[in-house]
């Protein structure tokens, strides 16, 4: 039996299993899932290119809708950015789960003897990386287009915290939405009302940093973001089993 380090034979080759279970195995499978998502994406670039083009289109439409002249720009920039990230994010979340569902890969993952939450965290980190890549391209572009400096450490921290919360809930909900008949339409409807407590503080805190408010005014928002991230990560951790297991 393949307990710790036992040896057997397959295809005339000896087979060695590492110890199953334990934190090492858990982290290794999370790593494997992230690696798999990144390799597949770097090759096809389907998800990233869709998210990026979409994000740029949203920024463009806002340009006309809001007349982003110099005075209004300062106050609406954080709103424009977060709406852009949120919309582009749903595209990515939908696609990343559809890949797992369509060829039965989700079953393949579930057949592996690892804790189901490893699948959740693997997908969360993968989705987070995609979202951060999109943000890393949109931010400098926006900076150049509208001549506004977005590279402030505070703002970047807010974007990271906000993206974590968004992806933590988004990954959980997208793994439910893929099973629905109306899956592409359903995800934003499920996600947006629940993720509002991430978007509101993220927008306000970003705005605070952009307008140079004092830290005391921004701090409650940051706290709220952190609280949200922790609560929803924990809840997803507890319920993810029930989402994927039949």
């Amino acid at each position, binding site marked *: 039996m393949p307990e710790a380090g036992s040896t057997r034979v*397959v295809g005339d080759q000896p087979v*060695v299993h590492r110890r199953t279970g334990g934190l090492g195995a858990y982290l290794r499978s999370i790593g494997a899932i992230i*690696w*798999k998502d990144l390799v597949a994406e770097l090759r096809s670039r389907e998800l990233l290119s869709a998210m990026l083009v979409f994000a740029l289109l949203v920024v463009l439409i806002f340009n006309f809708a809001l007349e982003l002249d110099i005075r209004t720009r300062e106050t609406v920039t954080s709103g424009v950015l977060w709406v852009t990230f949120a919309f582009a994010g749903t595209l990515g979340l939908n696609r990343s789960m559809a890949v797992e569902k369509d060829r039965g*890969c989700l079953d393949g993952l579930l*057949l592996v003897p690892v804790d189901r939450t490893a699948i959740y965290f693997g997908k969360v980190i993968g989705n987070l990386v995609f979202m951060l890549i999109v943000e890393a391209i949109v931010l400098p572009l926006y900076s150049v287009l509208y001549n506004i400096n977005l590279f402030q450490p505070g703002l970047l921290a807010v974007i990271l915290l906000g993206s974590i919360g968004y992806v933590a809930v988004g990954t959980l909900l997208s793994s439910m939405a893929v099973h629905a008949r109306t899956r592409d339409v359903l995800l934003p409807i499920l996600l947006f009302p629940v993720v509002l407590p991430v978007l509101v503080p993220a927008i306000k805190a970003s705005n605070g940093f952009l307008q140079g408010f004092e830290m005391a005014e921004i701090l409650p928002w940051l706290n709220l973001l952190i609280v949200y991230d922790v609560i929803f990560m924990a809840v997803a951790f507890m319920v993810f089993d029930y989402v994927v297991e039949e």
Partner: protein
Amino acid sequence: MIDVRGLVKTFGLKSVLRGLEFHVDRGEFVALVGPNGAGKTTFLRILASLARPSMGEVRVAGYRLPAQAAAVRVRLGVVSHQPLLYGDLTAEENLFFYSRMYGLTDLEHRVGAILEMVGLHARRRDLVRQYSRGMQQRLAIGRAILHDPDVLLFDEPHTGLDQEAAAMLDTLLQDVAARGRTVVMTSHNLDRAADLAERIDILSKGVIAASIKRDEIDPLDLPKLYRSVTHA
């Protein structure tokens, strides 16, 4: 190796499996046949630890499902009618990925050996998306035996294959099964089941309605028996 007693599975109000009894010895190759909607796939998903039984006792490789699912999963390989492979990864990358998930060592060697065995070594750097259906199924078998499982489950592995590819798959299935592994395969094709398996179980209306050893029956009588059982 597999022991199922009084298995009931309901979906809402509809009961698919109704007190099913099933037993497979170590090293046996059993084919499950039955009309569409008889519950073959549902049953196999329960054995694969992918679905929970509503009632009854299920033991695979000596472990109870769903309580000891992790122990079962270590000893279990599944080939489904879906390949369970990532289209945007190469064959090699797919196997690497699953090897890491299973916590195997000596990856290079192992993945190479498996690819050789399923006859895809020459095309290991091709994307799975570009593979033919038959090649995908062969790779799926490679994926299923990566961690050298004791029990193999095949869920309609021939779905969507042409004659030639199906014949090739048969050879591979027999090869994989011949290494002392226990195999359960579902099929809606009686001839194919009779060719491969030592025993044929007919699943009808949620129970095993008949169980026939291949060497105890004339293959020509099989369709008649099948009809009489499923239409009863």
